[in-house]
Each structure stands twice: as C-alpha cells, then as structure tokens.
C-alpha cells in the first residue's frame, strides 16, 4: 500500500483537491475510478482483479456499502503529495438533489463521456449544474480503446458545450489505463484547493448517508470550515439533533478512523443513528461544543414527486411488506409511505417516490431482497384540488379526489430537456405535444444532435413517456427533467366500474382530452383480462355519474369436459385441484372473480390501442359529451 504523508485532520488545504465524476450509466465511471485507486497505489495491483470482480456483486447485492462514495487518494506531482477527495454522484434524474449536494462538496468535476456514444441528457444536466456551482470542469472521453469510438466527433461536441478547445478534451481508457495518470495530473493542476476557514466553528456538509448493516448509518461529509473531533458531540443543524460520534475517519480505500477532520477534507462520521432520516443529505454538521450560527446553504427535505399504492398479492404478506419498507427506509430518506386500504387490492401502502426510477428501484428491491409479490397501482403525481366551497385538497391518490363540483385543479410541471439526433426532432415534437408539452427553445449541441426544451406536466412524464421517447427515437434520445412550478389544468377523475362497483385501484386522474381514451382502453383491457363467469359482467368507465365507455363480458355458458371416462378421471381431478389452487389467487370484486394477473396487466403501462374499434369507441365517447 502506498505510504501517505498527508495525515487526515492535519492536511493543508492547499494540498487538497476534491472532485467528482459526472457520467451517464455505462459510460465507465466505475472502471475509471478503479484505475485511479490502482494508480494512486492505495489498492495493490494484485487486489485489483478481485475488486473488479466484486464490484458487480456488491453493487447488486448491497446497493451501497463502502465503495467509492468518498475516497481519499494520494497523488504526487513534482515531488509534492496531494490529497484527492474523489466523491461519487448518483447518476439519475430522480436524485438531482443528491447530485447537487455532491457537487457542492467539490471544487472540480470530471465530465466523463463514452467516446462511442457522446453525451446524454442527464449528464448534460449534471454538467450544467456543475457549471452553476462554479466547478472546474475536466472533460474526458472514455473507452477510446473501442473500435467504435469516435473521439474526434465527440470531443468537438463537448468542446462546444463547455467552451473549450477540442484538444483540451482528455482521452482515456479505464480498461487499459491509458490517459488516467494524465487525468490525475490535470485534476491537481486545474481543480482549485478548497476555500473555507479552518479557524471558524466547524461546518460540514452531508452529501451522502447510507445504512450499513454492520456499522449502522455512515454519513459522508465534506468539511467546509473548522474541524470535527472524534470525541466531540455533533449537532445536525437542519433536523436539530445532537449525536455522540462513534467514529470519524476517511476512506482510503477502506474505512480508517481518525482523530479529526479538518477544513477541506472529505470523510465519514458514524453516529449510531438508527436510520438515514436522522442524517439527511444536505444538512450541516457542526460541533455541539462550539456551534456555528449559520448552516450551509441548500438544505431541504426530499419531496416525493410520484405516488403509487403497493399491495401484496397475498394479503397475508402485509406485515412483511411493512417490515421491508421499514428496512428500506433506513437507507432511503426520500421514501415515504403510509397504510392504505383498497377495496380491490386489500391492505397495502401509499408510497411517495422521488421519481419513476426511484419507484422502480424500491419495488424491485422489495421483490428481490424481500421476496414480496406486489401489485403497484398506476403512478400519479400530487394535485391541488379546490372544491366549489373553496376547500383545498392535496390529492396524492385518486381516491382522495373530492366529490362534487371542482373549481380548480393544479398539477406539478417539469422542465424537460431532451437530447436527440436531429432526424428524430419531428417524432419527439409529436410525442411532447401528445403529452401536453409546451415547447421552449431548441439548440444544436453539434451538427447532428439537438437539445430540446419542453415544459410538460409531470403526470404526463411519469406514465410511459420515457419508454415512448426511447421507442420513437430508436433508443437514441435521452431525457432529463426537473421541477418547474405548477399549472392549472382541466383534469377529471375517471372511475372504472365492474358490475356497477367502482374499483378504486383503476381510478385515474387524467386530462379531460385523455379521459375517453383512458376509459376505452381500460374497459377493453379488462374485458380481455377477466375470464367469463356465470353471469354477464358490464365494465364501465365513468366521469362522476356519466358513463363514457362500456364493455360487456358475456356470461360463461359452458365449462364442462365432454368426455370423462376411465382414463380421464385422474387427470381431470388433478386439473380441478389445480384450478382450485388458482382460485385462491383470485380477488373478489363483489361477485366477480378477477385474477391477479388482470390487475397487473391492466395497471401496466402501454400505449393505448390503435385498432379501429378503440378509435371508434373513443370518438363515440367524445361525441356523447357534445
């Protein structure tokens, strides 16, 4: 292991360089980070192979653990040892706030772009954020070893975006190691040393916080002013809690306890707090003994943008679902949930997520890590609904939509940035228009690619927008979005009735123009999905008491097996036993048996049917409104 001379807590700020790597998923951030660890000497050559192999497992199995959230890396230039703080950033649009905190902990950012693919919308949006934070940007093209790499073309594109010369764009290969030591030299040369006052009361920014089953909550911090000592009580200024630290230290590449952390340094704190909500990203830690008066800027509570109901298919799993959510919450301050009861789906939880990806991650972890079979209702966004009597309701669930006349509905909006090859400008415009998007500006970021700006209702983005964007652009377009206020909109609640009974799980709040297609699509889907039963089953879609679409499931007339002789009896009995077991997975809606698969399929997203019957029915429904 390389000997480090700069001791934590006693490292001069002028020798410190804190940076992060901004990259799209798959653009090779982990590989480049591994190379940096190897070149710095803190991970011996022979261990590298194992690290490479382990990485996937660790990331998949534990999601977090102690990896490269904030690694302290020594790097010597011209005989002087510098201390680099390499800070990891979450890579997705849902976690924009977390990204912004990670950026706030750095003075520089490595913009890492795949030389075979070019820059993606999310990367671009993070890049803009980094520029807003006044970070030094070091542009890098990765994967230059691949035959399909087009470094000249993408260097041109990047140069245009950040206003540098194409020759300033570094070319590296994380796989072969080519160019990585030059990258480290560039970091030392171009990233400014941290500012901040070493003699002021301590202030540290929390930029990440994870639950580790062995150590409890591990909080990653960037010291701004003063110093934190391992034996001093600490105070979280935003949430107003005081803790006795169990340990403070740095990661290089394993956790190394230290006595103190000084201004400009990056490290970790273990406080013994039980869950991450006691150690929130963006909060400021100060010393309880000599507290700072002002917290650092930018703290806020995570705001759920998307809500959905999660219900166990087998209601007996409800307590397990609760336990599982409690456990995930330890590691995810943004996840919120409260019990919900659905007539159709039984007991479950209404959950709030930062976005669709966050929702996907949570439901997938519930499935994979906790073995829960879940139905999730269609995601919806929070609305502000004003009734005629001027009472205002916050609606995160269609069932909370007030009855009676509605005066006004306000929906959240997002600003969406889409990067696409220019030949798909038309399809992207169509898509955005279909989703009630208002076009803003459009810029060419290179001769071939444009960035388009739209203002779109969040509700339109969370359903199937991203899938459709990908399919209409052959997978080339990328999307980024962030909150952008709200707008009043003509929204209605569409209910679905099965045999006259409202099925809460299928209710949706949609724009009036889309109500008919939603109603027709759902009733048609359900007609296909619900097996015929002894009696006729009407399936209707309604706005209030007005029916806008209707399908009928005709009564089942025959289910008998024609032949049942000596050789058929055993097989028939086994078949009936199997059907009986299958019945247990049926949900009863009134007298109607609905298979679980029908709920799952009906709630799954997908483009509305384009067949003639669907179009005719939508037209008829619209006409009936007059």
């Amino acid at each position, binding site marked *: 292991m390389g000997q480090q001379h700069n001791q934590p807590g006693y490292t001069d700020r002028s020798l410190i360089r804190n940076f992060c790597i901004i990259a799209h998923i798959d653009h090779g951030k982990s590989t480049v980070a591994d190379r940096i660890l190897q070149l710095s000497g803190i991970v011996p050559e022979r261990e590298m192979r194992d690290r490479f192999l382990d990485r996937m497992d660790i990331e998949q199995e534990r999601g977090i653990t102690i990896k490269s959230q904030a690694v302290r890396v020594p790097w010597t230039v011209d005989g002087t040892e510098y201390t680099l703080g390499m800070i990891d950033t979450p890579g997705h649009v849902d976690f924009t706030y977390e990204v912004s905190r990670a950026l706030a902990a750095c003075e520089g950012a490595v913009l890492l772009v795949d030389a075979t693919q070019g820059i993606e919308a999310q990367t671009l949006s993070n890049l803009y954020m980094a520029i807003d934070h006044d970070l030094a940007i070091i542009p890098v093209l990765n994967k230059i070893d691949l035959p399909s790499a087009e470094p000249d073309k993408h260097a041109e594109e990047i140069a245009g975006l950040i206003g540098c010369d194409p020759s300033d764009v570094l070319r590296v290969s994380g796989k072969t190691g080519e160019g990585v030591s030059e990258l480290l030299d560039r970091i030392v040369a171009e990233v400014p040393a941290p500012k901040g006052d070493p003699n002021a009361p301590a202030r540290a920014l929390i930029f990440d916080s994870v639950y580790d089953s062995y150590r409890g909550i591990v909080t990653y911090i960037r010291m701004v002013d003063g110093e934190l000592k391992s034996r001093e009580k600490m105070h979280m200024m935003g949430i107003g809690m005081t803790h006795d630290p169990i340990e403070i230290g740095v990661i290089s590449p394993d956790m190394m306890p230290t006595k103190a952390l000084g201004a400009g340094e990056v490290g970790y704190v273990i406080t013994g707090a039980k869950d991450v909500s006691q150690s929130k990203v963006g909060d400021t830690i100060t010393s309880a003994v000599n507290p700072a008066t002002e917290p650092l800027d930018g703290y806020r509570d995570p705001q759920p943008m998307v809500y959905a109901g999660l219900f166990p298919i087998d209601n007996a799993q409800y307590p397990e679902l609760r336990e599982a959510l409690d456990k995930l919450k330890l590691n995810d301050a943004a996840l919120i949930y409260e019990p919900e009861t659905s007539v159709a789906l039984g007991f479950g939880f209404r959950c709030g997520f930062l976005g669709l990806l966050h929702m996907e991650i949570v439901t997938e972890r519930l499935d994979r890590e906790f073995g829960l079979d879940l139905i999730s209702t269609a995601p919806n966004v929070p609305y502000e609904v004003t009734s005629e009597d001027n009472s205002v309701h916050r609606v995160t669930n269609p069932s909370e939509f007030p009855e009676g006349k509605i005066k006004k509905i306000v929906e959240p909006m997002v600003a969406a940035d889409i990067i696409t090859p220019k030949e798909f400008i038309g399809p992207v415009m169509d898509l955005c228009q279909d989703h009630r998007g208002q076009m803003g500006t459009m810029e060419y970021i290179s001769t071939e690619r444009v960035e388009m700006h739209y203002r779109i209702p969040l509700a339109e983005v969370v359903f199937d927008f991203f899938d459709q964007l990908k399919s209409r652009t052959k997978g080339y377009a990328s999307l980024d979005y962030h909150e952008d206020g709200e707008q009043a909109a003509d929204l209605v609640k569409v209910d679905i009735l099965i045999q006259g009974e409202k099925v809460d799980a299928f209710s949706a709040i949609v724009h009036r123009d889309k109500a008919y297609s939603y109603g027709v699509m759902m009733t048609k889907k359900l007609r296909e999905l619900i097996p015929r039963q002894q009696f006729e089953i009407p399936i209707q879609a309604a706005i209030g008491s007005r029916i806008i679409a209707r399908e009928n499931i005709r009564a089942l*007339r025959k*289910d008998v*097996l024609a032949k*049942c002789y000596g050789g058929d009896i055993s097989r028939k009995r086994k078949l009936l036993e199997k059907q009986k077991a299958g019945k247990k997975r049926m949900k009863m809606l009134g007298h109607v048996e609905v298979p679980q698969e029908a709920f799952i399929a009906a709630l799954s997203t997908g483009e509305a049917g384009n067949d003639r019957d669907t179009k005719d029915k939508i037209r008829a429904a619209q006409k009936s409104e007059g």
Partner: protein
Amino acid sequence: MTFEVYIHVPFCLRRCGYCDFNTYTAPDMGEGVSRGHYANMVIHEMAIVRDWQAEHGISEPYASTVFFGGGTPTTLKARDLVAMLDAVRDTWGIADDAEITTEANPDTVDADYVKELADGGFNRISFGMQSAVPHVLETLDRTHTPANVAAGVTAADAAGIRSSVDLIYGAPGESLDDWRTSVRTAIDLGVNHISAYALTVAPNTKMGRRIAAGALRKPDDDDEANKYEIADAMFAEAGLEWYEISNWARPGYESQHNLGYWRNVDWAGLGPGAHSHYNTHDGVRGMRSWDIAHPRLWGAAINGGSVPWAGHETIAAEEDVEETIMLGLRLHEGLDITRLEGVVPEEAWRGLEDDGLITRDGMRAVPTLRGRLLNDTIIERLFAFLD
C-alpha cells in the same frame, strides 16, 4: 361390489386430425404387439393381472360388463375380439346379463363381421358416426360416408345386438343446421343410445396445430353450448333421455359399463395406456394404475412377466370425495349428498339451486341443463369446501 373389464386396442387404419388417443396406424409395433398377435398379448396380461389381484387380496365378482375401445377394435379380426372375450370369461367369469360392447369404425365392419361378434357373445356395438354432413366428416378426417353407418346399424339389428352412435359437435365450419342434420340422422337410425361430444382439440394434434397456425377456427364454447342444447332437445323429443352429460338413451339402454366409471366401481383395464381402478380391498387401499402407453414397451413388460404399469396412485380419502363429486355431477341420477354431510353446508346447495345449476331430488343433487354445461363451476364451488 361391481367389477368391469376394459380392453384397449391401440390400432387404427389412419389417425384422425383431432385424435389424441393412444393409438397407432402401424400394424406391427414390435415385441409381439401386432394386429395379428395382439389378442394373445392381452390374454397374457389378463393372467398377470389376475395373479397380481390374488396377491393383493382382491377378489372380484364376475365381470358385469366388458368393453373394447380404442383405437379401433374392429381393425382386429372378429375372432380375435371373441378370443379375448373368452379369456375374460376364463379369467374372471362374466355375469349372465353382462353388457359386452365394442367400439367400431363404420368403415371396418360388415354384416358377417357383426354376426361373428354376436355369435361370440357381444351384445352391443358403438359406432363412431361423428357427423352426417360430408364437409364436417372431411374436417374431422373421417373416411366413412353417412351410408356406412346405416349399414352398420342394420347389420347389428340383423344380428340381434344393440347399437349406439357417437356424434361430435363444434368442428370448424359446422353450422347449427349441419348439426341439426347430424342429430336428426342419428335419431332416424332408430338406435336406442347416442353419445354426443363437444370437439375438444388437444394442441399436440394435427388439428391443434392447424388451429394454432390460424388455418382452422378454434371451436367456440358458445357455439358448442348452443349445439348441446339443440341436441338435448331433439333427443328428448325422440325419447332418448340424458343419463350422463354426453350420453342419451332410451330408458333401460344406458351403457352399464360407462355408468360404472361414473359410479366409481372396480375395473381392470388391459392394453397399452389403459387405466384400472380398485376401491379399498383387504390387501390394498383405493388405487388407480395405468399401463405403459407405448405398445412395444408395454409388450416387453408383458413378455417379461410383469404387470405392465407405467404408474399407479393411491387414492386418499379426500381424493375419493373429489372424484365422487366430479363424477356424480355428470349423472342424471346425481350426486349422493349424504357423502358430503358436514362438509358442504346447506347454504351452498341452496346457492347452487338459486343459480339454476342443480335441483335436489331427495338426497341427490342433479345438474340442470345449465348445470350440465357449467359442470366445472358446480364442482369448483363444492371443492371450495374441501381442504
């Protein structure tokens, strides 16, 4: 206690497109299993089965029925069928009033053949008529003409034996009028027993593959329900009453052999793939066995002197109840409600009555016309009370 014998003959002249029975068109399957030698193989199996029964404390009364099914039993020589029947008599004995049936393809029998069967002790013949409409027969891959069937029935009448015909409804392209024609033709044959089966297409058949490929339309449940109701009304008007879901007869002419299956009696099944069933005896719990399906492997087992089973199962008490329910509900005589006392509550029976699925006749539950078509619905509702 009742005991029946079933003999499976796994040969056909050709395979019909809808058929997934255990039958083969090759005349010689090896191991002595050929059309010419088949009777000897079955007779050998009888001896093996009788020894097995004796070892397991199973002592059966004389056989009350013997039934030759297939395949096409009449692809064998009449004297081979008679030889097997004689062997049953030698092995287990046959009751004086026993019903002795063979299935027959209208193509493969003539007056002499039928006469030879009658002389050998057969008293019932069941013809695979399927349809009286040429284009339907063609869809079903049948080679006979409607006239063959009439000739067969006439031959049976002349030989003094009863006949029955089988019909199939729901073939792709069969109209309601086509079906009425078939039903009318069958009634006009003057037979006293008719079976009518909805066409069921297994995916692994030629017809199944054609349907999957979109070359033929899939049989439609509603169409089949309509045709069932048409047949039931026409048969009833002609004096043929339903006694099982797919079987109608003049009173006294019901198939005793088939009633045995639905009443869950004992039977020995001989031949490739044939099932046997025994209620609990001194030496054995209620059980079912099935012979090896492939004729050559079946023949090898018999030549080796062992019982040629592919498998067997013990029928637990609750499974016996399940079978009683699903079989009893197929019958006009109905399901014995006392078997389910303390299991199925009164409200459940009343619910089934209210839904028009059953009527109760004393302590028996009898499916209505609607309940015959929705038989699985009734069974499922009763099974819900069993664990």
